[in-house]
């Protein structure tokens, strides 16, 4: 039924376009001097039918369920919900809905079956009502649009205004969704801090997010000091950057200045492929190849290391970041004007000297911006660390030890049974909030640096 409504709308839109276009054409043929071209008259008519009806259908679909429920509840025998808490009454509504959907468990009471039948009926009425409303509004809009085709009507400006509105809407969707996410995070985080004091979270050095299920359980109180978790993230990110920054920069410098055209042409796409490898693949590369290799090597020189070291996770994450940094640095180096290269070379600088003394300093803001973006990717990276890093939060900066990361903790906290009234689950939101703030600050810095750099060279 809903599909039918959409088809109807689509048909009306096409009709509006062709009717108005033809009307404008015939007016032109009759010698009238129209302000806008006929295709703009068509476009304006199509948009002025499509947009309002489409928005209307969406609103209808969002509200339909709630309104129908309301009607259905009104018809229930008086006093059904007396003395029931919200959970129990929700249960009754859910049961009625599942009966309406054809999933009957046991033998429900007669009034429930009757309510379910009414629910089905209401939905059918609502659907027909939707189609009828679409047909009527589309017809009215078609008529209004057809009337708008007159000599002086500025259809081009009208159509442009509608398209502009659509563009603004699309541009703000992402922003509003982000704001929504931040709000959701904020509320859960506040709930968490009502149970666990913020000072303990920020400065505590012990992270054991378990909650006793029974009063007398031995596991006792959990501890929610986030420092070891963040320390783990920092250690892993540091290892990653230690790998990625030098290798990435050297790659960029080589490709940008020293590589023959042929090499550049073949290596750049390969690097881009590397950037496209799913992180989960990097993850099992870390677990199955790098970690055992590190362990074996350490054993051969007589050192005992954990099976899931920060070194393995960080190292593989570093490899993931290489193409990221190298492409940023390559762009920054390429953006340095050709005249500066020529100037340095003409003074008798070698390519190396030119790179080191002229190109690199001139490109450094862009490079730093790229590195900072890589940092925020490293601390937000999840899959590799979930697979390759440990679960136990340790206060250590030894990369050969097993550490955990913020993202790992969030994943483990939200897997399995979640209860939104205990600090174990809520702590995931606090961690997420901290992570969000950290990456936000780094990104702001990075973008500022990149922008400053653009101002100088454009």
């Amino acid at each position, binding site marked *: 039924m809903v599909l039918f409504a959409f088809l109807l709308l689509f048909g009306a839109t096409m009709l509006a376009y062709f009717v108005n276009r033809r009307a404008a054409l015939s007016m032109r043929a009759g010698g009238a001097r129209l302000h806008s071209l006929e295709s703009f008259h068509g476009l304006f008519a199509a948009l002025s039918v499509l947009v309002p009806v489409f928005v209307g259908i969406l609103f209808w679909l969002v509200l339909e369920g709630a309104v129908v429920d309301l009607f259905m509840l009104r018809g229930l025998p008086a006093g059904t919900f007396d003395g029931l808490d919200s959970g129990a009454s929700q249960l009754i509504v859910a049961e009625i809905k599942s009966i309406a959907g054809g999933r009957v468990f046991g033998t429900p009471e007669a009034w429930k079956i009757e309510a379910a039948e009414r629910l089905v009926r209401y939905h059918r009425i609502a659907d027909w009502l939707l189609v009828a409303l679409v047909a009527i509004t589309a017809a009215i809009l078609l008529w209004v649009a057809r009337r708008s085709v007159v000599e002086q009507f500025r259809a081009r400006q009208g159509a442009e205004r509608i398209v502009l509105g659509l563009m603004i809407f699309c541009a703000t969707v992402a922003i509003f969704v982000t704001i929504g996410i931040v709000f959701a995070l904020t509320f859960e985080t506040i709930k968490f801090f009502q149970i666990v004091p913020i000072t303990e979270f920020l400065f505590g050095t012990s992270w054991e997010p378990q909650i006793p299920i029974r009063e007398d359980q031995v596991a006792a109180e959990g501890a929610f000091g986030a420092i070891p978790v963040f320390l783990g993230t920092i250690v892993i990110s540091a290892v990653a950057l230690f790998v990625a920054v030098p290798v990435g920069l050297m790659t960029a410098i080589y490709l940008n200045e020293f590589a*023959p*055209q042929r090499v550049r042409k073949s290596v750049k796409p390969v690097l881009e492929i590397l950037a496209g490898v799913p992180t989960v693949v990097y993850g099992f590369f870390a677990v199955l190849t790098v970690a055992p290799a590190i362990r074996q090597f350490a054993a051969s020189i007589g050192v005992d290391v954990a099976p899931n070291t920060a070194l393995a996770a960080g190292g593989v994450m570093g490899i993931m970041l290489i193409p990221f940094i190298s492409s940023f640095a390559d762009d920054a180096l390429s953006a340095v*004007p050709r*005249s*500066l*290269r*020529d*100037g*340095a*070379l*003409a*003074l*008798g*600088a*070698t390519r190396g*000297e030119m790179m080191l*003394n*002229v190109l690199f*300093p*001139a490109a450094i803001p862009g490079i730093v911006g790229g590195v900072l973006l890589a940092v925020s990717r490293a601390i937000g990276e999840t899959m590799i660390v979930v697979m390759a890093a440990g679960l136990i939060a340790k206060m250590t900066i030894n990369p050969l030890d097993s550490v955990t990361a913020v993202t790992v903790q969030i994943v483990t906290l939200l897997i399995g049974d979640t209860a939104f009234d205990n600090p174990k689950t809520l702590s995931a939101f606090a961690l997420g909030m901290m992570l969000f703030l950290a990456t936000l600050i780094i990104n702001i810095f990075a973008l500022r640096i990149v922008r400053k750099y653009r101002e*100088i060279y454009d």
Partner: protein
Amino acid sequence: MYDVPHGRNEVAVTDVKITARNVQVYYGDTHAIKDVNVEIESNTVTAFIGPSGCGKSTFLRCINRMNDTIDICRVEGDIRIDGDDIYDKRVDPVQLRAKVGMVFQKPNPFPKSIYDNVAYGPKIHGMARNKAELDDIVERALRRGAIWDEVKDRLQSPGTGLSGGQQQRLCIARAVATEPEVLLMDEPCSALDPIATAQVEELIDELRQNYAVVIVTHSMQQAARVSQKTAFFHLGNLVEYDDTTKIFTNPEDSRTESYITGRIG
């Protein structure tokens, strides 16, 4: 007809500094320079004139092997400075470029301080043993670039903050700081206003005392004002090469005459 100041166009008896024989340049399949023969004298300003795309800049860039930095560019023939073949395998283009300075069309100071801009060449060639010597070299170069008085109080401020004309003179100072023997200028005034142009032209005439100056220019008036020798390029050919006064008053080739009288170009 042309604004020719007295004295500047007189040709002194001088030695040949650069000899080019049968020079061909190819960009990929394009034959950009066809069989150019020329002898450039020291202590002389030699101007290359000609319409856009005639190869004058390309030929200029052969003299300090800047064309080496372009992958698809191929140079054939024989170019000698003081009798030494600069395309010989044993010649290091890096050392050659220290000997043959170059100034570009657009002022291109490095994003460093004025001092560091000028000190860059001497530093990478190890010309100064200590700070005092380097200071000396920088001051001398800036004086030769006729910009010392304007920047002596702000040597540490960025070179990019100067005006266009000052930047270009800074670039000239930067080029002469490595004590070159030849100075190549690729349309050095095309991005400058008339006043800055006049200052740079003045400077070019002074530089003639110490260097062989080769200047590419689009402006025939400029060629007439600053040079003693003029070479006219057309479609990759060196059409005519002679004393500037001769080229501008009594050219032998009809194409030269057409160009300087404004009929082609």
